[in-house]
């Protein structure tokens, strides 16, 4: 029976722990410096918005860990001595491990802006960030104006959060259209309009130059790079992406680059040390995927896989077809397969948008063979297992459009749009 120690109690580390427990009797310890128990980071925004309380974000009741003999340590690991398999805690404690899983997650990016460490500037990633946000921006009297820098998923969620407290938001986005480094232009434009429709002051093609403060070191304004405009504000949310949280790991023998370097088996350069989730970096990116995948689903998948390896069934991290999801204010987004902002050289896009400007799809398909490669769907719920199967079966785009009804996952009695989409597709491509 070995002692498996996991640093980080997010979805990756916890999934690994659960699966290791199902497969073995190893001693398992999960360490976290963020919270005492696992909670769902995706739900942090809802705490601030008043939809849920913190305890609702915990997927397992507190007795779960003891019942499954998973030890929890609330503390900060300041060093890992791989030669002696020892962890050193900030408070002086030590812990021995037989196998170590590093799942320390991400930290918010800062790109060296002047004033980025002022009081009133924060990222949005951890529970501590949300607690800080509550004190800095409890209402629009205390926080008269907020500026968000960085147009991605976290930025738009922060905008939605502040909007529920009626705090005016200026949103600085360096791209031409919102999230157009990921979304094709038709999708990105619709999302940009949707964000504007909520009264968010969305500034596209705008970079942050610097953050200014008052005499007390408190944020009081930002300056936009392109125009020199000064925007008075009490709060600056820096959401220009995340990077692996590995500052502590860098001083150890474990090899790192941007993240902790791992092979396909999620092994680091040290024999009994693994890394999974946001903090892990594949030496060779897999397929079209990035080397670092900071996504909830891939973290979970890596946890499921590394548990097999640790319990004697060595398995490669071998993700299936790409999928992801998000929500932009009131518009839900799902993606299955690969849809690039510009179709890859041998591919084309088909785009359909509903006239009410709240639903659209984009399909990427191979030009010559018509093979369906991926779909973005906004405002229409679609089935994961159907698209996964169609991608495996290498169905044509024609087939997918014709059978789109099978993939519909909207609630009963909802209006359906498959025939409208089919019409649009037929007209555009003169289908027989």
């Amino acid at each position, binding site marked *: 029976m070995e002692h498996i120690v996991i640093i980080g109690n997010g979805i990756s580390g916890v999934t690994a722990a659960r699966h290791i427990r199902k497969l073995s009797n190893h001693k398992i310890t999960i360490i976290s410096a963020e919270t005492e128990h696992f909670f769902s980071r995706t739900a942090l925004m809802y705490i601030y918005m008043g939809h849920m309380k913190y305890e609702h974000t915990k997927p397992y009741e507190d007795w779960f860990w003891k019942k499954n003999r998973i030890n929890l340590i609330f503390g900060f690991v300041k060093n890992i001595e791989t030669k002696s398999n020892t962890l050193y805690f900030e408070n002086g404690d030590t812990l021995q491990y037989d196998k170590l899983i590093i799942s320390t997650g991400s930290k918010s990016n800062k790109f060296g802006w002047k004033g980025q460490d002022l009081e009133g500037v924060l990222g949005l990633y951890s529970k501590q960030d949300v607690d800080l946000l509550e004190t800095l921006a409890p209402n629009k009297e205390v926080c008269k104006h907020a500026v968000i820098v960085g147009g991605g998923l976290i930025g738009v969620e922060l905008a939605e959060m502040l909007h529920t407290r009626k705090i005016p938001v200026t949103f600085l986005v360096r791209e031409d259209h919102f999230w157009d480094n990921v979304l094709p232009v038709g999708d990105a434009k619709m999302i940009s309009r949707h964000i504007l429709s909520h009264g968010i002051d969305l500034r596209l093609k705008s970079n942050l130059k610097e953050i200014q403060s008052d005499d007390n070191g408190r944020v009081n304004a930002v300056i936009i790079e392109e125009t020199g405009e000064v925007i008075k504000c009490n709060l600056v949310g820096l959401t220009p992406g995340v990077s692996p949280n590995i500052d502590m790991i860098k001083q150890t023998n474990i090899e790192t680059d941007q993240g902790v370097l791992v092979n396909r088996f999620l092994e680091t350069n040290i024999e009994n040390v693994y890394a999974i989730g946001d903090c892990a970096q594949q030496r060779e990116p897999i397929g079209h995927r990035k080397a670092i995948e900071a996504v909830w689903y891939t973290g979970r*998948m890596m946890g499921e896989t590394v548990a097999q390896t640790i319990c004697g069934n060595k398995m490669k991290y071998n993700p299936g077809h790409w999928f992801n999801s998000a*929500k932009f204010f009131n518009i839900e987004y799902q993606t299955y397969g690969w849809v690039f902002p510009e179709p890859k050289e041998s591919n084309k896009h088909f785009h359909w948008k509903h006239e009410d400007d709240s639903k659209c799809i984009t399909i990427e398909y191979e030009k010559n063979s018509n093979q369906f490669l991926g779909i973005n769907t906004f405002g229409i719920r679609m089935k*994961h297992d159907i698209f996964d199967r169609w991608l495996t079966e290498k169905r044509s785009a024609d087939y997918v459009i014709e059978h789109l009804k099978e993939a519909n996952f909207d609630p009963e009695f909802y*209006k359906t749009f498959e025939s409208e989409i089919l019409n649009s597709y037929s007209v555009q491509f003169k289908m027989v």
Partner: protein
Amino acid sequence: MSLAKPDSQALSKTQKFGVAIGVIGLFVMILAFFNVDFPNKTLFLSLSLVMITVGTIIFSNNAYLTKQAGIQNDGVWFKSIASRGFWGWILGIVLTLFYIVLYFKAEWLGLAVKGEANSGLVALFDPLSRLLNGGPASQWFVYGTLYTVAILVFGYKFMLKYRHNRYEQLRTVSVMFFQLAFAFLIPEFMARLNSDTFSLPYYDLKNIWPLNYYNFDKYRVDSMIEAGDIGLALLIFGIVSIFVITPILTYKYGKRWYCSWVCGCGGLAETAGDPFRHLSDKTQVAWKIERWVVHSVVVFVTLMTTAVIYSYLGNDSNKYWLTKDVFLLSVAGLLTFVFALVMIFKRKELAKDAQYGAIGYFVIIMAIIGMHYFSGTKHVFLFNTYFLQSSYGFLIGAIFSGVIGVGFYPIFGNRVWCRFGCPMAAVLGFQQRLFSRFRITTNGGQCISCGNCSTYCEMGIDVRAYAQKGENIVRSSCVGCGICAAVCPRGVLKLENDSLKGRINSNDVLLGNDVDLMDLVNQR
């Protein structure tokens, strides 16, 4: 954790105005309760009801039409009334007291002592009562009117809140219709048919046994039989509802056809009770208690009804084919038949303690029926029929269903009765779990474990636990309200009816990972 109650959750001026109008309308009724004798009762009653309605409409329009369509749960846990704060407790106490007075001290509401005229609050409703059924009002008429008005005005509010969701809108229209037509207007109009020679019992057609636990009481059955063909039709309809209509509809659609689309308790819960749905207890302990309590109530009502019908049946098979003995044998036969079917075909789907519970209850019921059959006394398990009947009516019908059921909305959520006490829920749920096409499908690997579904499940089901395993939700307590699917930010849940095969399908490794790993781990 919130250091300062966000002022953005304060009511807008228009909403305050709407509340003020509604409260003034309510105040007229409070004045009547304190025996203010309004000269023109028709005018003041109309004024009161209209102001309550208009106030709610003004409030709802401003709360929801000023925002884009979508989920409207901002600030739910910050508002005092919706998060067990000061106003939530005040409302809970007021509702509980109202129910206690309604059930046990109706004379305080102004119900007339024999022969005299009504006074107080009840008298205010006399004009409406005379309009509908031709007679003076009673405390039940007052209750019925207020109940119906609540479902209608809060149904309107609910439809605005969920105006982006067709399922919720249609379901609410259904519930509003069934309450207005079946629970209120039809029985009131039917009362007009009553005379010295012809009398039908007050019958809400959608209220089925065992929820309608008194439907087979002697006075009602006599009344129906003596009222010619119509009466007999009502009696047969009541029986057909139990043994034919309910099983078929529950098989096809799950118990949601009743609990979320038809039932009056459900109707109030979903409309007036919507602001409290997230207060349901989600812990595993609550679920453990729930299973035992609600199934014990079914056993109680079955024994009680059997005893009641037994007590007024005859012994002479020449006079009427349904004698005491035939009845007991039929009940025993039916229960044995159902028990056998479940144990033979569905034993694996019951948890260990559920199997023991089923066997235990079955043995108890059969023993009691056996004692009866062989000894022929009026007693059932040491208690007499009247005691069983009145204690059930008191404990379950009044206290559990009314006082606790609605009074506790702001504290324990809107479905306390449905979850812990309703025998109909237990019976329908039993069928839903074992033999129904209904389920909530989960969307592959898309769940992000945020917890919105579990938080807003009024029945306290840990929906997230299923979604994050990619497992269909087939739970006996699920009433199919559809809110979990509505609040899910990633479109992971869908209520649907589909084949029974493979209905229950847990996955430890979700879709999206290595297909070989999925096969390895999900293999059962």
